């Protein structure tokens, strides 16, 4: 991750109301009910992230974005509890 790219992502996440949970290493927004894993943020560009930040979700409840396919039920349960 280059310096300027990191700064852009940091600014984008903060401006969009995302806070960082250092224990779970996740960027989350309680209002939008969206969370991005730190690896997801590191591996994708700011414009790619923005697309997901702006995306309107059809399903209610939390939406977790990470580098992988299925989020284990227990992990989802624990995250939902931790993020509120």
């Amino acid at each position, binding site marked *: 991750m280059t310096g300027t790219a990191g700064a852009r992502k940091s600014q984008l996440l903060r401006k969009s109301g995302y806070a960082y949970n250092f224990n779970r290493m996740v960027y989350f927004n309680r209002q939008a009910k969206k969370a991005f894993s730190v690896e997801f943020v590191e591996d994708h560009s700011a414009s790619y992230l923005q697309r997901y930040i702006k995306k309107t979700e059809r399903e209610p409840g939390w939406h977790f974005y990470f580098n992988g396919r299925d989020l284990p039920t*227990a992990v989802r349960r624990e995250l939902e509890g931790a993020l509120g």
Partner: protein
Amino acid sequence: MTGTRTIEDRLREQYFTLLPDIRRVAEHVEAEVKYGVLPVSHRLSKYEQLVVTSRVKECESAPDALRRRQVFGTFDTDRPTSYSLTDLKDLAGVRILAFPSSRLADINRVLRKRFPSWQADPVVENGRLLAFKYSGYCQASDKVRGEYQIVSTLIGLFWEVEHAAIYKPAPELKGIARDVGVRERISEAYRALGAFEEEFEAQIAQILEVHRRRRRRRRSI
């Protein structure tokens, strides 16, 4: 007391089962590295230095390090037995600090001969190599892997200060360093330390060149 053990409880118990192996691996790798770098350390000039240290990962930070490697830093409590501290590559670690940084390649070359089958996992920041890093098994244990890192003195000491000041008292704070904003500041520190090191090395090279010329002149008189 409910009698239900958490994943962390299991891992803490495993830590103490592994501890004799971890210690043996740390001692073994340290001894191999110290012996392996002798061809380099015997040729060092008085302004150059090479320091070898070893450490055993502590009980409280090992389960936390494994947790941080999981998606969203969270263990899957439906699969409590699927986690093992032996997945960590750095339970026993050796660090080689070298100055000037031009010595890193020399040290890497001699140590590759001693650890030919170890897996390389270099530490790279913004395209710049910060440290050579290798991990693998040695004669001391077939359960616990060891790791060694070769890093410039300034960067290595920065990591030690960062660890002692922030993470050692509270290992759970390690996740802070992954925040993109914090990573920016850490990158700036690396850049500043690298620039300082380069400038310092250039000054020393200049001084040495002046000394060499003087010696040559004296000889020719």
